[in-house]
C-alpha cells in the first residue's frame, strides 16, 4: 500500500488565511485541498468550519419549534407527545436545550465520523494510505456546505410554510408526498448533499491520489447511494 507523503510543504502552493480557505472552499475547493494537504496539520482547518456548523445549527434551532409547541411565524411539525409532560414554556426551553446539544454533538461527531469513512475508503477500497488528521481537515472543510444548507433550508421553510421543505428534488412533490418512498428518495437528492459529497470526493481524490471519478464512486455510493437505498428499503 503506497504511503502518500502529504506533510511536506510544497513551495508552489500558496498559503492563505483561514478565512480565505473557508471562502475558497465554496468557490475553488481543489486549490484549498491542495493547500491543506501540502501544509502541516492544523486544528483550525476543521475546528472553524465545525464551529460554524454549530452556530448555524443553533440559529436554526431558535427559528424552529417542536411538534405542538407554537412559535411565532412557524407552524407545528406534527410530532405529538413531547408537550404532555410539562408546561409549554418549560418544554420549549428544554426542547431547545436538547436540540442545541444535539446539534453540537452531531457537528463534532459527524466530522470525525465522515473523516473516518474517508480514511477507511482510502485504506480498504482505494488501497492508499494517508494520515487521519488530514482526512479530518478535509471532512471539516467540506462540512462548511452544511452552513449553507441550514441557512437555505430555514429560508425555504419560512417561505413555503412547510417544515418538510428542503432544497431537494422533493420540492416537486410538495407536502403531499411526505412519508412516501418517492419523497424520501427525492429528499436524498438534496442539492447541498450532492455538493458536500462532491467536495468529499474531491478531497478523497487528492488524499488518495486517485482519479476524481474513482473517489466519487465510493463517496457518492456511501453518502448518496446508500441513503437512496435506505429510502427504498424502508
Amino acid at each position, binding site marked *: 500500500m503506497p504511503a502518500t507523503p502529504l506533510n511536506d510543504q510544497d513551495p508552489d502552493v500558496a498559503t492563505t488565511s483561514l478565512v480565505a480557505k473557508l471562502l475558497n472552499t465554496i468557490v475553488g475547493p481543489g486549490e484549498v485541498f491542495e493547500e491543506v494537504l501540502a501544509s502541516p496539520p492544523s486544528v483550525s482547518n476543521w475546528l472553524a468550519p465545525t464551529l460554524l456548523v454549530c452556530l448555524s445549527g443553533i440559529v436554526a434551532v431558535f427559528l424552529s419549534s417542536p411538534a405542538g409547541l407554537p412559535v411565532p411565524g412557524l407552524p407545528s411539525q406534527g410530532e405529538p407527545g413531547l408537550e404532555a409532560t410539562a408546561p409549554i414554556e418549560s418544554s420549549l426551553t428544554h426542547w431547545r436545550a436538547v436540540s442545541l446539544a444535539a*446539534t453540537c454533538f452531531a457537528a463534532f461527531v459527524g*466530522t470525525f465520523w465522515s473523516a473516518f469513512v474517508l480514511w477507511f475508503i482510502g485504506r480498504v477500497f482505494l*488501497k492508499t494510505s494517508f494520515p487521519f488528521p488530514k482526512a479530518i481537515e478535509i471532512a471539516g472543510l467540506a*462540512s462548511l456546505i452544511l452552513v449553507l444548507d441550514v441557512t437555505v433550508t*430555514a429560508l425555504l421553510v419560512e417561505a413555503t410554510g412547510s417544515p418538510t421543505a428542503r432544497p431537494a428534488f422533493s420540492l416537486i412533490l410538495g407536502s403531499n408526498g411526505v412519508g412516501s418512498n418517492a419523497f424520501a428518495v427525492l429528499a436524498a437528492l438534496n442539492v447541498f448533499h450532492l455538493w458536500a459529497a462532491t467536495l468529499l470526493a474531491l478531497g478523497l481524490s487528492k488524499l488518495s491520489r486517485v482519479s476524481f471519478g474513482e473517489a466519487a464512486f465510493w463517496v457518492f*455510493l456511501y453518502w448518496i447511494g446508500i441513503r437512496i437505498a435506505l429510502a427504498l428499503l424502508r
Partner: protein
Amino acid sequence: MTKALIYLWLALLKRRALHFCRQLRRPTAIVGVAAVLCLVAFLFHFRRHEIFAIFARPGSLVGGMLLMLGGSVFTGFLQRGLVFEPPDIEFLFTSPFTQRQIVLYRLLPSYVFAVVQGFAFWALLQLHLKHPLATTLCFILFQIACFHISMGAAILAGTIPQALHERVRWMILGVYALITAIYLHVAWDLSLVPSFATSRLAQLVFYPALSLTDVASSSAFHELGLRLRGSHPISFRLLLEQSLYLLGFGLGAVASLWLLLRLKANIFETSLATTTRVAERRQRIQAGRRIITVATTGLRSVGLPKLRLFQGVGAVVWKNLLIARRSKRELSLAVAFSLVYVGLLLALRWVLHRNMAEGGSLAPRELRDFDGALGVMLCALVFFLQRSFPFDFRSDGHHVVAFRTLPVSAFSLVLAEITVPTVLCLAFQGAGFLMLLLTGGFEWHVMLLVLFGFPAVALGLNGVWNLHYLLGATRSAGGKAQSATAIGTLMTVALSFLIFYPAGWVTVTVGQHARLGVALAAWVATQYSVDLAVLLIIARLFRRFEASREG
C-alpha cells in the same frame, strides 16, 4: 469463423468426450458422474413439485438473471484476459487467424453449454411456465449474452493496471451488495435494513450530507434529554449507579493491568517450556497418538509372562493389557460412564418390577420385548466404551512399521491388536448384565443375545474403527501431515452402523419364515462372517502397507 477452427473444435470435443469416457473406469469418476446423474434424475422425477413453481416465478427468474449477469461480469473481471489451453496458445496465436475468429472459437464451448443448460431448464420448469419454449430460448440467449459480457469483462480487465483492477473489484462488490439488498426487498419482501437505520438519528452517519435540523429534532436525543432532566428520576439514579459500577470495574481492570506489568519475573524461560510442552502435545494429538504426561513415564519395565497365551503374537496382547492396567484415567472414566449407563437400565427394570409387584400387569410378550430392549441398549454400550479403550492401533499407530518386522501373520497381529479393547468392552458389558440380573432373570433369547451377540457386535465395531486407525497410521507413516480427516471419521461412524445392516436384514428375512431361535442364529452367523471379513480387510491393508513402503 473459419472452417479450420470449427474442425479443430469438433476434433478436440470428440477427444475430450473419449477421454471422459475412459476416465469413467476410475471408481471416483464413475461415482461422481453417477451422483450427478442421480441428482438430475431426482430433480426430473419431482419436477411437478411446487418448489419448481417457486423457481418459475418472475421474481425468481429475475433474481436468477441478476445472479447470472452479476456473476458473469465478476468472474470475467477477475479472470483478467482469456484462458486458453497451452497448445492453443502455441497453435492459434501463431496461425493467421484474426482476433474475432479466436474469440468466436473460444465462445463455441460456451454456446454448447448454454444450449445444454437451456435444455435442463426446459425439462425441469416447462410445466410451470406459460410459454416454455419462448422462455427457454430467451434463457439460452441470455446465457449467451452473459458469456459475451464475461468475455468482454475479462478482456477489459486485462488491459487495466493491477492496482486499479483490485480497486474496481471492490466497486463491483459494493454495487452488487446494494442491488442484492434492493432485489431481496422488492422481489421477496425481505428487508436487510434494521429499523433504526432509517431513523433520524441514523442520518448522522451521512454527515455532512444531512439535514441538521432533522438530527437535532431526533426523538432519541429528546428522550435522553427528558431522562437527564429528571422526568424519570429512577432512570437518573440508575444511570449514576451504572456509571459507578462501570467506574469500579474499569478501575479494577486498570489496576490489575498495572500490577501485571509490574511483575519482575522472567516470562521467557517459563513460556519456552510451556510452549514446547503444548506444541508436543498438539503434535501427538495430530499424529493420532495418546498424550502421556511426564509423571507416567517413570514406570518400571515389566517382564514377559510365561503363560503360553502371551508368547509370540500374544506379546502384543500382553503389552496392550499392561498399557490398559497403567491407564487408570481411561479405565476410571469407562467405569464411571458404564455405571451411569447401566444404572439407568437398572432403574428402568427395577421400576417395572416394582410396579408389577404392586399389582401392575404386563403381557408376557410385552415383558419379553422390554427385556429385549434392555439387552439391545446394553449392547449399544459398546459404541461408547470402544472410544474409551485406546489399546489397539490407535496407540500403536507409530509402531506399524516395526510390527511388520515381527515373524507373525498379519491376520494374527490384527486379531491381537483388537483383543484388549474387545475383551474390555465385553467385560464391562458383562458386569452390567450381572447387575441387571440382580433385579430378576431374563428370557433365554436375551441370554443368547448376550452370550453370542455381544462379542459379535464388539468385534465388528472394534474392527471397523481399527480399520480407520490403521489407515490413519499408514498416512502418518507415509509422511502425510494429518493422520485422520473429518470425512474419514464421518465415514467410519457411518460404517460402524452399516456393518450391522447385513445381519439385521438376514434376521428380518429369516424371521418371516422361521422361528425366533433360527432368526437369531442367522443373525449371529452373518454378523460373525461380516466381522471376519472386516478383520481380513484390515490384515490385507496391513500387508499392502508393507509392500508400499518397500516400493
